[in-house]
């Protein structure tokens, strides 16, 4: 059944953005509640393969080399934001420094308990960063600051806010939304929204 006259959001565009997405100029705050307020000095990232672990603080993460990244981002709730600029450390550099780039699967964990699974190849062979800045400033807490994961070629729920850990594993382990019915990989250009898409 089609509702005559209902078009969804007016700015929906075809072509440049993944199917089913509309372009927005604001940065909608997506929240499941539980926004974390973390001072930078209290933040740390634990990278582990289950037997050994490496811990990074704000400064030791920066020592790995911060890059600028300009990218489009796509949320499964149908908005895309084009040309956002971020600063961060490539996840490839972090996993390499930790000596943990060889396992196939990863689970990102957040302060507050959120989790999401990502293929290691999606972290190291694409523009995935451990983001420490947005548009030249700090990342606002509601957008996952001080430090969030950014995997821009996948739906944004893969880009864990308030990043606390990356665990690499030989087997896949589903995260928060993936367990609840969302797609295990989440490629917006293939419109992999839900499990089975």
């Amino acid at each position, binding site marked *: 059944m089609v509702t005559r006259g209902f078009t969804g959001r007016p700015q929906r565009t075809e072509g440049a953005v993944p199917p089913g997405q509309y372009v927005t100029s604001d940065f909608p705050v*997506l929240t499941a*509640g539980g926004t974390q307020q973390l001072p930078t000095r209290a933040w740390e990232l634990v990278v582990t393969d289950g037997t050994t672990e490496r811990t990074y603080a704000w400064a030791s993460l920066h020592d790995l080399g911060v890059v600028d990244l300009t990218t489009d981002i796509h949320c499964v709730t149908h908005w895309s934001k084009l040309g956002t600029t971020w600063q961060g450390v490539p996840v490839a550099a972090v996993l390499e420094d930790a000596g943990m780039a060889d396992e196939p699967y990863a689970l990102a964990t957040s302060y507050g308990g959120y989790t999401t699974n990502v293929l290691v190849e999606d972290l190291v062979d694409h523009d995935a960063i451990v983001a420490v800045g947005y548009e030249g400033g700090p990342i606002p807490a509601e957008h996952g600051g001080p430090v969030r994961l950014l995997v821009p070629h996948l739906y944004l729920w893969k880009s864990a806010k308030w990043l606390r850990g990356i665990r690499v594993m030989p087997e896949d382990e589903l995260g928060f939304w993936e367990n609840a*019915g969302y797609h295990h990989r989440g490629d917006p250009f293939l419109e992999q929204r839900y499990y089975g898409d």
Partner: protein
Amino acid sequence: MNAEEDLLSVHPEDVHVDGNAIAGAMSLVLGREATMIVLQCAECGDRHRVAETRVYLRCPGMVVRCPACSACEVLLVDRPHRLQLTLMSIRLMELP
């Protein structure tokens, strides 16, 4: 905008509503009216009606949180042809 007017605004960031918002989808799963069902939170033990939970709609699915401790009690994913309900932090459901 002053604080008084703010009260009547729907804030993009202030996103929780209450359990009435997920009652329709939950009723489908439970086969009965859902707002009066009493949940007990497995985290803090608080007992409350579904209608009194805090519901976050501005995320991939719908997140139902305990009004006392904010633990995530239920996840609801309302797909075009499938409804998926994940029980998270619930110790007890009591049907009146």
